[in-house]
């Protein structure tokens, strides 16, 4: 009987069972999903054997959206409803988009994040991205044929909090349990480093479709330590296409184009760019909807000149990252190239020149990020692996709080290793002041107006005191996903008032529920069934983990009474897992989590003590 088994510590269900987990590279141009099979990371292909899923979503009235190649084919004929490069819109307001005017979409300026008007109504970039993720989830479920523990989703290292939060929300919306948001260059470093047993200082130069990252890592004894990261969240292969597109317009002296023709020429530009990787010149031909003809010859030389400033734009962040790491280019042992755009010969040449060495191209630049994400997902899911490694990543951009005069007081400096928490004390400036408002921003500039606004909140209920007497401590906590939470608390009187803030760009639970409902209009399963299934997966995972912990340390670290309490919580959860009452199941999970906090804390303490036991007391003779 299942219940008896579960209540018995040490009798966990088969601990050697492989837990299924996936890594997803949610790219600007293409997305991929990978997993670890028999110890080897592999990309999961679609039914036609294709690895890439073009990150293109086409909305059609009264239909499930088309995603991938089918949508990509329709982008010229149906530009307003076919969303490409949606990643550039994640966590961005309309005013953030320098090139909004040249993008063939019907934008809706919404607070926080821009939205798009489509044949299926107004969609946020989060919903569009969720469609891509959903397709990849289905592909993986189909190929793996089992219950998935979760996914690692990669993001550009230089993504700020708003962009990360948007990505995590999209994954939630797509029904994925996010094990971790992983920085793309770090994922690539894992795939490269483990494959080549690399040790030393490495740079990862990652130029994708829409984003540029440079990360400097130290690889040593199984630890991947990011020393510094920098980049440009709005620079990528798309910009090279755009330069060709502008050149075509200029050369052919074309009048302003329709959305259809814009998309057509952008597609032609991308094809030309790809051809120039292999050939010294390319012919660009197109017939526009007006009947006008385009027929041009673009040489590699002209293309180099058109894009020299874009290539140069990657070197500034590269220098800054090296400087933040306290290193010079000649201390870098290898430069790993990532992202399809690094295939361009001018990029290869520039990087080789800067680092005075040939860059490393022995991994497929399109796949390496997804493979690294899968390798990390496999470990995060709790599978044992032969090599043991640890990733130590950093926050790419500083966090601060607005002070008098619109200036930023920096609290968490960029390149701090995650997770991190920093606190800063503030005080009231008026007698009897009972409330205080805070504005959290992200960026390197001194003025609030030049940084990204993340959250605004007010702390109320401060007891009336003389000006300057209250001591309000604001704590910024950044977790391993690079996501921020903020709390504030008045300290001096012992009166506590605290708030937890979700950044203003994040979706509320209500938003998610509404979007979920919207997305199920045309789908077979319903929201409740899915929520129940997700809770069941979580519940089962918790039962397994608790049983394993009890088997390992229950006797040593818990009293008989404490063990009995946890056993009762386990039985209650097991019973709830048998039924289909979502509320009861959630409550049982919460209860068991509450019952095991103390146990978790003691286990952590014991494991640290054990780790340091070898050289416990340092000789103290001063």
């Amino acid at each position, binding site marked *: 009987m299942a219940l008896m088994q579960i209540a018995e510590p040490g009798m966990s269900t088969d601990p050697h069972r492989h837990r299924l987990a996936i890594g997803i590279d949610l790219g600007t141009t293409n997305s991929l999903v990978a997993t670890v099979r028999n110890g080897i990371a592999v990309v999961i292909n679609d039914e036609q054997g294709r690895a890439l899923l073009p990150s293109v979503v086409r909305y059609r009235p009264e239909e499930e959206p088309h995603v991938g190649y089918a949508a990509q084919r329709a982008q010229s004929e149906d530009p307003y409803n076919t969303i490409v490069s949606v990643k550039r819109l994640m966590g961005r307001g309309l005013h953030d988009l320098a090139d909004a005017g040249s993008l063939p979409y019907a934008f809706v300026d919404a607070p926080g994040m821009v939205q798009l008007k489509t044949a299926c109504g107004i969609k946020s970039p989060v919903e569009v991205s969720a469609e891509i993720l959903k397709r990849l989830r289905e592909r993986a479920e189909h190929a793996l044929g089992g219950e998935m523990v979760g996914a690692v989703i990669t993001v550009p290292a230089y993504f700020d909090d708003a962009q990360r939060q948007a990505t995590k929300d999209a994954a939630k919306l797509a029904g994925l349990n996010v094990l*971790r948001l992983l920085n793309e260059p770090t994922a690539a470093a894992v795939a490269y480093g483990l494959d080549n047993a690399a040790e030393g200082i490495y740079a990862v130069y990652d130029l994708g479709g829409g984003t540029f990252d440079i990360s400097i890592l130290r690889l040593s004894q199984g630890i991947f330590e990011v020393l510094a990261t920098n980049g440009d969240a709005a620079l990528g292969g798309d910009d090279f296409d755009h330069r060709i597109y502008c050149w075509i317009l200029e050369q052919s002296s074309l009048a302003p184009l329709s959305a259809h023709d814009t998309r057509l020429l952008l597609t032609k530009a991308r094809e030309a760019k790809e051809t120039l990787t292999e050939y010294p010149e390319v012919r660009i031909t197109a017939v526009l909807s007006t009947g006008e003809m385009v027929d041009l010859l673009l040489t590699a030389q002209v293309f180099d000149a058109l894009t020299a400033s874009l290539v140069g734009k990657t070197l500034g962040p590269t220098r800054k990252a090296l400087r933040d790491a306290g290193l010079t280019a000649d201390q870098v042992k290898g430069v790993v190239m990532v992202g399809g755009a690094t295939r361009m010969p001018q990029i290869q040449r520039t990087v080789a020149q800067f680092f005075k060495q040939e860059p490393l191209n022995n991994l497929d630049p399109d796949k390496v990020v997804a493979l690294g994400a899968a390798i990390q997902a496999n470990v*995060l899911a709790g599978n044992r692996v032969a090599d043991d490694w640890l990733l130590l990543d950093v926050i790419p951009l500083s966090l601060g709080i607005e002070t008098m005069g619109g200036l930023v007081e920096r609290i968490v400096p960029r390149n701090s290793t995650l997770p991190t928490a920093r606190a800063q004390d503030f005080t009231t400036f008026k007698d009897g002041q009972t409330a205080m408002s805070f504005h959290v921003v992200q960026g390197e500039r001194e003025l609030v107006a030049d940084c990204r606004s993340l959250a605004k909140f007010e702390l109320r209920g401060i007891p009336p005191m003389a000006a300057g007497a209250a001591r309000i401590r604001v704590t910024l906590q950044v977790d391993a996903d690079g996501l921020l939470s903020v709390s504030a608390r008045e300290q001096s009187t012992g009166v506590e008032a605290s708030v937890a803030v979700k950044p203003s760009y994040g979706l509320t639970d209500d938003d998610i529920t509404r979007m979920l409902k919207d997305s199920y209009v045309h789908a077979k399963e319903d929201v409740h069934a899915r929520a129940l299934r997700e809770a069941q997966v979580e519940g089962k995972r918790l039962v397994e983990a608790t049983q394993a*912990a009890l088997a390992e340390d229950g006797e040593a*670290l818990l009293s008989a009474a404490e063990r009995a309490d946890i056993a009762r919580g386990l039985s209650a959860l097991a019973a709830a897992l048998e039924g289909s009452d979502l509320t009861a199941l959630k409550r049982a999970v919460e209860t068991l989590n509450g019952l095991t906090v103390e146990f978790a804390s003691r*286990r*952590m303490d014991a494991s*640290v003590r054990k780790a340091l036991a070898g050289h416990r007391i*340092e000789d103290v003779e001063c």
Partner: protein
Amino acid sequence: MSHYDFHKNHFELLGLAPRFHLDAARLDQAYREIQAQVHPDRVAHLGSAERRVSMQWATAANEAYQTLREPLARARYLLHLRNVDTQEETNTAMPAAFLMEQMEYREAIAEAKATQDAHALERLEGQLKEKIAQHLAGLERALDHAHDDAAAAALVRSLRFLNKISAEIADALDALEQ
């Protein structure tokens, strides 16, 4: 039953003696060993209790490591443990000779910037490095041997200025490169 108490100081957490002189390799090793145990990636598949505890530990380990790794922060922290206020915001009374020197550095940087003289900046950088090394040696004497906390606090205050100038030189060099 004892468990991790978040009032444990950074030296205790990393199993190191509370003094200024520090074996960097040993600090690195201790930090890595702790993170290998407590990092959130180790418990990503476990329940929320484990994940919460892990985040607190890993955060504490990072703070300890960052503080102890950096000499100025380490000195300041040691003084804090000894209940000595370094008065960095309040005590601006620096010796006249020191202030003179500061001004000379600033003028030299401004001149090198104006004439785009990278070599002059590099020379300044070298001088400053030496000066900083002298301060660190002084801190070790004051904190670990003489136990002269007042002298150590004064060194912390002037080291802070030197670090700022050092950063300005690096910024100027960086601007020249681009």
